[in-house]
């Protein structure tokens, strides 16, 4: 019983490119997806509180759907960790965390160091 409870409640932390490599492994289960908010991708409807944006690690990016206002420090290129699951290519999130780490500086030239990004989000 313990073993089963443990495996079903494991939440993997991955970046978009890791999802792209093996979507089957993660589809339908709860994961924490890390990445940066892609520039010019943020849409927020303040009536139904639907927030959509692209999350990217410089290699892959996926659309994110979240219900709720963008948090205080949410902006383009901000490091985010979102919790939820993939539903046919879109990540449906119910928890959105901003990582305001001083370690990772948002890239100026568009090049993202994936390993550094990963470390700064963990």
């Amino acid at each position: 019983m313990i073993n089963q409870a443990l495996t079903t409640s494991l939440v993997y932390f991955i970046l978009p490119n890791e999802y792209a490599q093996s979507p089957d492994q993660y589809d339908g289960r709860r994961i924490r997806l890390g990445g940066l908010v892609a520039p010019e991708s943020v849409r927020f409807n303040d009536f139904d509180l639907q927030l959509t944006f692209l999350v990217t690690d410089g290699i892959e990016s996926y659309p994110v759907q979240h219900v709720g206002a963008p948090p205080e420090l949410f902006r383009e290129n901000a490091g985010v960790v979102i919790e939820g699951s993939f539903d046919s290519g879109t990540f449906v999130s119910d928890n959105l965390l901003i990582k305001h780490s001083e370690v990772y500086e948002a890239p100026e030239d568009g090049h993202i160091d994936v390993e550094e990004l990963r470390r700064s989000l963990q």
Partner: protein
Amino acid sequence: MLSLGTLGTAALTLALALAVYAVVAGAIGAIRRDARLQTSARLTALAVFLAATTAVIVMQAALLTDDFSVKYVAEHSRIESPIWVKVVTMWAALEGSVLLWAWLLTAYGAVLAVTAPNTVLRSWSLVVMQVVTIFFLSVVTFAANPFIVLANPPLDGPGANPLLQNHWMMAVHPVLMYLGYVGLTVPFAFAIAALITRRPGTEWMRLTRRWTLFGWGFLTVGIISGGWWSYEVLGWGGYWAWDPVENVSLMPWLTATAFLHSIQVQERRRMLKAWNLLLIVLTFALTLLGTFLIRSGVISSVHAFGDGPVGPFFLAFFIIVTLVSLSLVVWRWDQVRDRADLDAVVSREGAFIGVNVLFLAMTFAVLLGTVFPLFVEATTGSRVTVGAPFFDAITLPVWMLVLLLMGVGPLLPWRRAETQTLRSNLTWMTGALLLALVLGFVFGVRKVYPLITIGLAGWNLASAGLLLAGAIVPRARITGRSLGQVFTQYAFEQKRRFGSMVVHLGVVVIALGIAASGGYRVDQQIRLPYGERVAFQGYELQALRPFSERVAGRNSVGVEVAVFQGNREITVLTPRINRFGTSQMTVPTPSVRYTASHDLYLALAGAVDPQQDFVIIRAVQSPFVTWIWIGGVIMALGTIYAMSPGDRPLRRSVSAEAPAGAET
């Protein structure tokens, strides 16, 4: 020139040297039965305390005078901060909190040196206390010294972690936790002394009964106050998230709770000697392991305040403590082996053993869930967290069994239950359980765990009633006095017994609070256009105006929200976002309306933009959540009552005659 930093390090080094002397003198004195050496070691405990106190005073002086040549002050304090923040900054980061821990330990060591009765155990337990003190003083002197002097001091510092500055509870919660941890070091020290001196009887636990309750009580209120702090500060409307930091505080509490119950079996039935020794060792070891886990950065946590270089030290000391204690138990096996056997499972001792198994199972599950990510990462390289569903799935059923046993246990007599009395008691309790279930159902409770909890609350209330009736009614009949008089006398004379009933009542109250608030929380984000009323859970919320204020190093931006109920304005809540000093970090700070039946909890969901004509807030309604804090107070009061002097020793004859009112 003598700077505060140098002075602080000197005081710590002196304390360390004195503690080493106290250990050497105490151990040699005990082995050679040299009374003068023993006395010298005992008095040295006072000197250790004085030296450590000097270090604490120096730290406070450095914080209050903004002496940024002291590294800790430069890294964690700020000129602008209010005085209370400066004072509590001492335990707002790693180095300072180890200093506080070490200082409290020296204080307990000194109190023990003065007050412990002169028995064979005294010398060795003081030695063990000083060994632990040496560990903490070494960590704070060598690995995490807050007094390091900076060659080029900055003009100002960044201030304490915003999450900690944001609430006065931060002044209290860590101190309570450390008082708890350190309090449980005392029975640990006596347990080791009992093993060394071949006296694993009940003496060590009788001598430390108050210390155990004291440490356990502080740990209890420490954990609950931590829950209230996260409720008031973290802005998601919850109080427990199975975060590693929370888990490692819960583990020693679980084992200490098991210990509180199992020592009674040894006191009455001379059983479980080795078990009790191992339990208190485990409790102490878990505080070390927990500190290692959350301070070394091996486990990520939302509130791991400051990773540092101390992790390996705690891990090493954890291993040493575990190995030495286990070796001692093995070495003294002839003395600690139990000679009595369990007569019947259905007995007081049976219930105590059962509740021990449950608490240990929960400890294991919590430990497993907390460290499992480490194994996964080591074997597969994947970064994982264990979600709350795991902890809930394992611990909730076990808690239900704990509540079940909590009702039955106190009614069972020692050795063997007399079936007729037991059957009649169980009938009453089952009746109360069913009644409570029906009432819960009628009032709309449909979820399984909340419903079971309500039923078990009824079960426990009936049990408490039967216990009191069993103790009071026969006495009133024999003596011809009124029930009220007999009750007062009973509560006054049986402090330990009555105190434990009060603590159990607190547990029931907390269980109800958790069941209701966990099962029936409503949490949603709402768009509030300024000036319009928007309905939420029987309330109407109206955003009035945004505001900003600046006080003592804190910038707040927030919104005034009027709360209406039936067209009457009942209060104005002010959820806000705080920013401290120059820190980039923002702290969304909720505003809560507390009532007995439920809380209305408002937090800002996003930024407050003065250009916008609306604001989005997160509104949470949690039923009965306040009863968790009230239950905590009840538990604390019961613990204090059970500790207070004047408990009359039990009379065996009474417990044999009146099983229902059997005394402790």
